[in-house]
């Protein structure tokens, strides 16, 4: 981000995305409460606050599964990319659902007693055995991580914490997920022993772990390749014909992936890591003469790895040579933004 920050950079697709998201959640909450009253009638009419706690909690937990699935699904098919670019809003909404769940719990179960509700929540159950474990603490842990992610979701934070730190922080979503699975398993599932709930949480867990392994297996192939580096410091990384026009081949060299693009009868190579959110540039495409990141559309010129003005992002570039049909790639990166003459295809 190099032009002035905006609170939110709205565009038509983001608005559609958010409307669908909010409408689905509103409908979920409404249906949940309606369904409870439909089945419970007078039994539950005075306990509506507890029903809302369950509605918010379950909505947040289901949404978390959706959020965690998007990343690996885009690895498996690019058609899922339209769900990815605005995933941050999904995360913030999920956090807010969690907050409502926690606020409801705090007031309903811990207020009107002989202790401050938060102190009561933290000290009420101190039996740390496996099944009696205070599942509330796991929920608080998960919520705190999601909170840190939500409050740092603006691009201001991406820039000021730098993308790797920001990403590391946001990778903690997996820690949050495990804490929340524990929270549900040691909480709701202990009170409601209906097999449907246990099976649903189990399937969710297997799905999340499975889809990540599936995507990782697909990715691993790329990083396993090794290239022989010749005396001049160049490696033969493949033939020109492997790369579709305006697209890239991704190879791992110098400890990181490199995107080697073919466009306009030329070959250029830049580091695969977008400076915005470390998205995979090699899965991007040349649009308007610029390499365009598939995640949020950040652009870099293939010749020098720099974003066109007024943007100031720069990524490392690599020298490229051609010998017949073979592409030789320098194993030494140039400083970000260093111009490199593209290799011209004869």
């Amino acid at each position, binding site marked *: 981000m190099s032009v002035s920050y905006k609170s939110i950079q709205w565009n038509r697709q983001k608005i559609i995305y958010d409307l669908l998201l909010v409408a689905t959640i509103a409908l979920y909450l409404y249906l949940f409460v309606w369904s409870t009253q439909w089945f419970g009638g007078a039994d539950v009419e005075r306990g509506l606050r507890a029903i809302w706690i369950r509605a918010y909690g379950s909505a947040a937990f289901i949404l978390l599964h959706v959020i965690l699935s998007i990343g690996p699904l885009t690895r498996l098919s690019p058609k899922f990319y339209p769900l990815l670019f605005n995933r941050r809003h999904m995360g913030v909404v999920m956090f807010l659902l969690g907050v409502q769940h926690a606020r409801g719990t705090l007031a309903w179960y811990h207020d009107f007693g002989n202790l401050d509700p*938060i102190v009561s929540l933290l000290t009420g159950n101190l039996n740390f055995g496996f099944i009696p474990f205070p599942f509330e603490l796991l929920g608080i842990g998960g919520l705190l991580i999601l909170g840190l992610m939500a409050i740092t979701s603006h691009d201001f934070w991406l820039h*000021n*914490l730098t993308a790797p730190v920001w990403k590391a922080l946001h990778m903690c979503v997996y820690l949050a997920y495990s804490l929340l699975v524990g929270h549900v398993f040691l909480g709701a599932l202990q009170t409601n022993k209906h097999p449907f709930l246990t099976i649903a949480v189990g399937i969710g867990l297997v799905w999340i772990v499975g889809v990540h392994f599936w995507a990782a297996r697909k990715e691993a192939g790329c990083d396993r390749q090794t290239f022989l580096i010749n005396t001049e410091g160049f490696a033969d990384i493949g033939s020109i014909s492997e790369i579709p026009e305006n697209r890239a081949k991704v190879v791992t060299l*110098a400890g990181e992936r490199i995107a080697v693009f073919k466009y306009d009868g030329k070959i250029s190579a830049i580091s695969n890591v977008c400076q915005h959110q470390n998205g995979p540039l090699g899965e991007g495409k040349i649009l308007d003469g610029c390499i365009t990141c598939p995640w949020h559309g950040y652009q870099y010129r293939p010749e020098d790895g720099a974003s066109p003005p007024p943007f100031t992002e720069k990524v490392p570039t690599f*020298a490229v*040579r051609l010998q017949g049909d073979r592409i030789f790639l320098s194993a030494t990166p*140039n*400083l970000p933004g260093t111009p490199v003459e593209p290799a011209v295809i004869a």
Partner: protein
Amino acid sequence: MNEFAIALVEWLLKVIHAYLIGGLIFSVPFVIFGIHRVDPNVQGWSILFRIIIMPGLLIFWPLFAVRLVRGKTAPTERTAHRVAAQAAPQPAPQGGGS
């Protein structure tokens, strides 16, 4: 009731409270006067933007306090390629295809 646990938690909550109050005291003037110096990308006076980053500032305010004092802006990320490029002897902008 475990009196020790209660006392400990009450004390911890006070510490967190104090940290957040400190963050508020730093952040309000910071988003108005100091933020442009730490991040030149902040241009203009968008209030909504400042409100959106406020909760994060309450947590990460010491980071910005240090940068403000040292007159620094955000560092550039360190990836394997960036580190290797720093270490490598840089040739003059060179041609490929040769």
